[in-house]
């Protein structure tokens, strides 16, 4: 062994929260994002808004999949919980939109606990199937209940007002989603480098070792699961307000897959990678418009190729 050799080595690297190679392009991207609607038409803005929606959803799922290492195939369910909670409360009970957000967050927490608490002890592939089943259950419930508007969904969801200004146009929602995306990124970054964030990494790398140093595995996973759920539910609220009409079709297994694809594509567990992945997922239908029925195949091949040849994603984690 080479204890001495290592001891004489210079200390490599300082703690870097963000590296300049990330910060500079990040700032450029942010500046671009802020001015985008000023020179882009409604179509581009709409696509960009969708991209921002996926950024929020992918960042949320990244907490579950990337940080805590739990494969969730029913993430759209929490998106649905948020959208329906907000939609029902505004359309049926006349709630102010902003008041529905905390209610939706609470609802997502409850749903997260109901499904997470008993199942997070399971091995990861079982968990994947349970979440898939849960996603389907939520969709079927939304489809079959009267309060959710049944299969054709809810219509006439009020558009939110802020300081007397009503969010109406694509641009307004673009900025609303941009704020939400930045807020989510900020939240993720804060949590990632906090005690709980580290606990998720510990559990993901080695559950037993994590337990051996005093981390409650199930609680840690549950917290990740719930935090992911809450983020999806907030995205759902804003989505409902933007669409004004929601139906179970927006919360299918395919939706969950797309969000997962975004997380995996860019690089699990890392915010810039996930943001990149999310944007790619949102652009995919636009870019592949000509591909027609080949589109799902192209998407699938991309996913498989990433896993086989770049398992850490397009923009992988080079931390430490």
């Amino acid at each position, binding site marked *: *062994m*080479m*204890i001495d*050799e*290592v*001891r004489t*080595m210079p*200390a*490599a*690297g*300082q*703690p870097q929260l963000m590296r300049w190679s990330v910060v500079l392009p990040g700032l450029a991207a942010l500046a671009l994002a802020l001015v985008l609607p000023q020179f882009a038409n409604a179509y581009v803005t709409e696509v960009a808004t969708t991209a921002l929606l996926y950024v929020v959803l992918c960042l949320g799922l990244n907490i579950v999949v990337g940080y805590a290492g739990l494969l969730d195939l029913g993430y759209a369910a929490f998106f649905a919980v948020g959208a329906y909670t907000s939609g029902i409360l505004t359309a049926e009970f006349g709630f102010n939109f902003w008041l529905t957000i905390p209610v939706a967050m609470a609802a997502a927490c409850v749903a997260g606990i109901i499904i997470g608490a008993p199942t997070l002890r399971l091995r990861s592939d079982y968990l994947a199937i349970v979440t898939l089943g849960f996603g389907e259950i939520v969709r079927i419930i939304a489809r079959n209940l009267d309060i959710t508007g049944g299969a054709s969904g809810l219509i006439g969801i009020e558009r939110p007002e802020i300081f007397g200004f009503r969010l109406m146009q694509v641009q307004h929602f673009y900025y609303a989603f941009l704020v939400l995306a930045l807020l989510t990124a900020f*939240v993720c970054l*804060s*949590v990632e480098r*906090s*005690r*709980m*964030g*580290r*606990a998720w*990494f*510990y559990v993901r*790398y*080695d559950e*037993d*070792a*994590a*337990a*051996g*140093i*005093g*981390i*409650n*595995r199930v609680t840690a996973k549950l*917290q990740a699961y719930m*935090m992911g759920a809450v983020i999806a539910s907030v995205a759902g609220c804003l989505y409902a307000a933007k669409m004004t009409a929601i139906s179970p079709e927006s919360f299918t297994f395919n939706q969950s897959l797309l969000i997962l694809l975004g997380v995996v594509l860019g690089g699990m567990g890392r915010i810039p990678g996930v943001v990149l992945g999310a944007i790619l997922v949102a652009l995919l239908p636009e870019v592949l418009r000509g591909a027609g029925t080949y589109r799902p195949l192209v998407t699938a091949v991309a996913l498989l190729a990433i896993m086989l040849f770049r398992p850490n994603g397009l923009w992988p984690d080079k*931390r*430490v």
Partner: protein
Amino acid sequence: MALLEVRDLRLSFGGLKVLHDISFSVEKGAINSLIGPNGAGKTSLFNCLTGFYKPKGGSISLSGRPITGLPPHRITALGLARTFQNIRLFKEMSVLENAMSGQHCRSRHGIVSAILHLPAQRREEEAIRAIGMRWLGFVGIEQHAHRRAGGLSYGDQRRLELARALASAPELILLDEPAAGLNEREKLDLIHLIRRIRDETGVTVLLIEHDMGLVMQVSEKIVVFDYGQKIADGAPEAVRADPRVIEAYLGTED
């Protein structure tokens, strides 16, 4: 009162008895060892003590508090830390982050305060970091704090595992074959380190080790296992001379 009290501990896997009515104790401030041939049940005992296995019967208490059957994270929180036989570091994380992990059960801030960047949370983070650095310094690898843990030399990985366990502020630390894979030089360093743990921090040490040289040098008391039973218990010299121990190790001719 002894720090660790094990009474009539029994464990079995699907009908196969692994531990038979084990009883022993570890005094506060001691360095004790557990030895025995392969398959004697030493690691199984460790796993019972740390909550990874649920014993079939008997009791374990730490500082008088019963810990039998508690989940691992609760036991760690009550002051019992461990290392693993085949080093189990979080290899993709930094050395410092590994050391900081030990503080998890001694800190309390959660997601909400992290998002809000509360001053108290920041102070706690700073404290966790400082404690992590302190233990890295204690085991002598603070200069590697920001390297990837998996990139450390084997000997340093062993040290890091010790630092991580110590960072959880334990009363008792269980070391599972800490000398495995170390060379003679590193073993000497390890002996020195184990003594420092007890002398400088007051943490009681219980280790499983195959390297008898090391065991004989550091232990004040040795518990010997064979076939899941305790066959001897005493000071190194006495144990070394015990015919039952020699028999367990070298076998009998008939």
